[in-house]
């Protein structure tokens, strides 16, 4: 087995990747004791990040989960397997089985992961593989965001008027800390509001129904979340689907990075963030070294967002 993909990732970041064998100056390598430089292009970064994302959120029933964990491990250890269309095709099939077995309960990013792994498998068979993967990535992200915007702006009755975030900030425990920290709620107000928003059985009515207490800051937070999310998602959709120019390419990556950097600070779906970042890296060419580093850094940042209870720590610090 060749040296691991992760080791290659660590040594080839100067934008000089090639797809052919790399001649290594052994004498020079001996002089500066630097590790040998092996080809590891942006597509490999995208594939590696996808494999890591699969490992970070194990999924599926017993008859798909072991293979969905074992294949990414082997891919990270073996660059040959990382670039195997068959292996990625197998992962796509396993994800499809996982979705069908649990239908309709699978989250949307599992579907996107399935499309993405299929796109990887097909691109690895294509003569212009990197361009094919970049194109599939743009279309998949763009279309996913088009549908997300369609749901929020047109199909849902309770998003644009702010009700979704007004209720979610108060009732979803995953947003409770942010509601207190940014929305200015006390823990007692939060508890009282949750009680007031409990759904009563059909026909039941309280003699004196409690009212929801929304401080102005909380209303502002809900409206900022409503319109901010819609604006960012629209921007991602637009920049992904418009034809590529040098400027649009840069704006496209910046928009996606800003979306992931802000959304996943609050949204408890790190798996979606990792997937989008892996897909974004799949659009890079060998010269975009800074963006390559930015995607890897953002991937790590999303891990930290999920694992560090930053809002809770800030709340405790604020209380002294």
């Amino acid at each position, binding site marked *: 087995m060749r040296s691991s993909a992760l080791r290659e990732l660590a040594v080839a970041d100067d934008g000089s990747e090639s797809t052919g064998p790399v001649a290594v100056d052994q004498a020079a390598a001996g002089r500066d004791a630097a590790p040998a430089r092996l080809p590891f292009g942006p597509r490999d970064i995208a594939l590696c990040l996808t494999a890591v994302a699969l490992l970070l959120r194990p999924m599926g029933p017993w008859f798909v989960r072991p293979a969905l964990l074992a294949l990414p491990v082997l891919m990270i250890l073996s660059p040959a397997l990382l670039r195997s269309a068959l292996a990625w095709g197998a992962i796509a099939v396993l994800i499809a089985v996982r979705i069908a077995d649990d239908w*309709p309960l699978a989250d949307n990013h599992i579907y996107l992961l399935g499309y993405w792994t299929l796109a990887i498998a097909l691109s690895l068979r294509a003569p212009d593989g990197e361009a094919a993967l970049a194109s599939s990535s743009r279309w998949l992200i763009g279309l*996913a965001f088009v*549908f997300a915007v*369609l749901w929020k702006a047109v*199909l849902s009755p309770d998003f644009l008027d702010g009700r979704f975030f007004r*209720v979610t900030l108060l009732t979803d425990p995953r947003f409770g800390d942010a509601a207190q920290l940014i929305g200015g709620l006390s823990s007692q107000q939060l508890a009282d509001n949750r009680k*007031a928003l409990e759904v009563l059985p*059909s026909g039941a009515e309280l003699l004196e129904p409690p009212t929801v207490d929304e401080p102005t800051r909380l209303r502002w937070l809900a409206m900022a979340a409503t319109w901010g999310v819609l604006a960012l998602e629209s921007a991602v959709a637009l920049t992904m689907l418009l034809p590529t120019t040098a400027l649009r390419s840069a704006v496209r990556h910046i928009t996606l990075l800003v979306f992931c950097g802000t959304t996943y600070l609050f949204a408890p779906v790190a798996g979606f963030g990792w997937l989008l970042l892996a897909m974004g890296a799949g659009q890079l060419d060998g010269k975009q070294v800074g963006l390559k580093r930015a995607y890897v850094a953002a991937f790590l940042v999303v891990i930290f967002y999920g694992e560090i209870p930053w809002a809770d720590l800030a709340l405790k610090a604020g209380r002294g």
Partner: protein
Amino acid sequence: MRMVAPAMLVVVASTQIALSRTVELTAWKGGGFGMFATLDHAAYRGIDIVVDGPDRSEALEVPASIEVAVARAAACPTDGALRTVAESVLARERRYHRPVSRVTLTFWKADFDRATLRPSERPVRTFVYDAP
């Protein structure tokens, strides 16, 4: 070949929208990317269970053993999904030697008032299963 995966996304997401409009599939599930778009999700939709039998008419809490079946039916309350829940309830009641002649399932959703946010439960459809 590069458009195969995006084409699949469009087909699945369009089907999801159609199912949400025809059989009440929740916006959050089914591959249509409607998550974080509406309050119409698992926390605010559910299935009420009532069993009838000789000398009994009783509302049941959802037993742990059929939670997944109920979650599926709440996410997409088709006849098939509701029948699966009813048959599971019937089988469970009979395991405990409790007589059942009919299982009635009511699928409900919660609405929130636009101004006050006051919630109210709204029955959407009722499914009656007569025990064989």
